[in-house]
C-alpha cells in the first residue's frame, strides 16, 4: 500500500474543511479526486504534503506516519495548480527542472526528461515566456526528474488550452501505464476523470465515494446523487 488516510479532519475557525476522510491508494493506482471548488481537495493535498500540519487523524505513506518522518517526500513528485512566480524571474526551463533535482549527479536525467515531455527545444527559454501548457509540462518535468513513485497533481489543467490538456492527459496515462507511477490527481472535470482514472474519490468536505472508477461512473444513481450534491458550486465554477 502506498498511502493510507484515516479519519482526516481539518478545522479552520468556524468551518470544517475536511471531515473524517478515509481512503487508501495502492501501487499503480490512477486516482482521480473529484469535487467542486471548496470541497477540500487542496486542503487534502496540503496535509498529504506536510504543508498543513494541523489536522486530526493519520496520514501514512509506505506504512509510515508522515508526522514522524518526511522521507516519503523523496518518492513524491508534485505539480501545483498554477505555479506562482514572477514573469521576469530569471530562470530558464533548464534551471527550473534542475531545481527539482535532488542529486547533482543525476544531471543527464534533466535532458532525458525534457525530451520525454517535448520541451527540450525550449530549455534555454525563460519560464515566464512560455504558454500555460508549456509551463505545466516544465513543472511535470521538474516533478519527474527524481524518478518519483507517486505523482500528485492539484487541478493541473486550470487555465490551459484544450490541445495542451489533451497532450497533458496522454502524458499522465503513459506515466501510469508504462512507468507504473502512482498518480493522485484532483480535478473538477468528471469526464476527464472517467476517461483516465482507474480509481475515484468524490470529495465534498466528507468523502462521498471511494472505489474503482467503473463502480462510480457505471452507477447512474451514484453519479446523479453526487452531481446534485455539488451541482450549485460546480455550475458556479463554470
Amino acid at each position, binding site marked *: 500500500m502506498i498511502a493510507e488516510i484515516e479519519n482526516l479532519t481539518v478545522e479552520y475557525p468556524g468551518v470544517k474543511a475536511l471531515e473524517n476522510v478515509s481512503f487508501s491508494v495502492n501501487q499503480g493506482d490512477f486516482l482521480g479526486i473529484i469535487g467542486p471548488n471548496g470541497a477540500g481537495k487542496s486542503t487534502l493535498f496540503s496535509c498529504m*504534503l*506536510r*504543508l498543513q500540519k494541523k489536522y486530526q487523524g493519520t496520514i501514512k505513506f509506505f506504512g509510515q506516519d508522515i508526522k514522524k518522518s*518526511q522521507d516519503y*517526500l*523523496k518518492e*513524491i513528485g*508534485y505539480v*501545483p495548480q498554477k*505555479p*506562482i*512566480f*514572477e*514573469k*521576469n*524571474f*530569471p*530562470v*530558464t526551463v*533548464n*534551471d*527550473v527542472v*534542475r*531545481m*527539482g*533535482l*535532488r542529486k*547533482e549527479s543525476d544531471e543527464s536525467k534533466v535532458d532525458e526528461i525534457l525530451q520525454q515531455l517535448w520541451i527540450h527545444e525550449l530549455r*534555454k527559454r*525563460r519560464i*515566464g*515566456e512560455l504558454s500555460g501548457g508549456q509551463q505545466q509540462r516544465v513543472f511535470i518535468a521538474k516533478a519527474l526528474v527524481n524518478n518519483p513513485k507517486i505523482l500528485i497533481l492539484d487541478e493541473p489543467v486550470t487555465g490551459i488550452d484544450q490541445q495542451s490538456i489533451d497532450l497533458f492527459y496522454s502524458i499522465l496515462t503513459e506515466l501510469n501505464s508504462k512507468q507504473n507511477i502512482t498518480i493522485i490527481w484532483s480535478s473538477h472535470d468528471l469526464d476527464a476523470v472517467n476517461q483516465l482514472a482507474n480509481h475515484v474519490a468524490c470529495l465534498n468536505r466528507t468523502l462521498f465515494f471511494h472505489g474503482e472508477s467503473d463502480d462510480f461512473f457505471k452507477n447512474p444513481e451514484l453519479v446523479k446523487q453526487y452531481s446534485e450534491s455539488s451541482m450549485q458550486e460546480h455550475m458556479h465554477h463554470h
Partner: protein
Amino acid sequence: MAFEIFTFSFMQRAIISGIAIAILCSIIGLFLVLRRYSLFGDAIAHSSFGGIALGLMAGVYPLWTAYGVSIVSALIMTRIKDKFNISGDASIAVLLSSGIAVGLVIIGLSGGFTINIFSFLFGSILLVSINDTILILTLTGIILIVILLLYRQLLYSTFNEEQAKISGIPVEKINYLIVFMAGITVVTSIQLVGVLLISALFVIPNVTAIMYGRGFKQTSIISMGFSIFSVVAGILISYIFDITPAGTIVLFAIGIFACTIGIKSTGLLSKT
C-alpha cells in the same frame, strides 16, 4: 597619470575591496530582489547606524557593533514578520526607522560625534586599511562558498517556497541564512558606499541584469559585471575629479541601468 593611480597602495586596497564588495552585494542582492525584498538591504543598513553609534559611544570599533546590531535586529525582525504575519514592506519600515532612531538617541546622549559618523553615512573606501581588506576578502570568500554549496536550496526557496518545502528543503532555515548573509554583506559594504546608498548596490545591477532575459547563472554574472564596472569606474573617476566615490559609483550603476532601458526600448533585447 591614469596608471600612476594604481601604484598607490590605498588605491589598490580600495579597488580590491571594492570588487569583492561588488560581487557580494550583487549576488546577495539578486536573492533579495527576487524575493521582493529590495529595500531589505537599506533597512539593515539603517539599523547598522544604531550599531555604529553604539560602537562610537562605547569606544569599540564601530563596524563590530554594527555587525552585531544589524544581524541580530534583522533576524528578530524576520522572526516577528513570520510569526505575526506582518508584510515585508512594513517590516522593512520598522527595522529602518528603529535603527536610525536608536542611532540618533545614542548620538544625542554622547554629545555628538559628527565627523566619525559621516564616513559611515557616505562611505570611505579610500581609507580602508589592509586589515579591512583582509576581512572583506575573507567574508566574501565564505559567503560565496556558502552560496555555491547551497545554490539549489537558495534558488528553489526563492523561486517558490511551497514547492521547495515539498522537495524537503528547510525553507525557513534558508530564509534566515539569507537574512544573516545580507546582514554581513551590508555592514561589510558600508565602507564602500555608506549607509545611505547601500541598497543601490543591492538592487540596481540586478534589476538591470534581469532585463537581459537570461537564466539564473548568466543573470548573476551579468549583474556582477555591471556591479564591478560601476565600483571600479566610480572609484577611479571620483579620485581623478575629487568627488565622492559613493555617489559616483551609484551614478555609474544608474547609467548602465538607463542604457539598458534605452537598448530595450529599441527592441534589441528580448521582450522579458
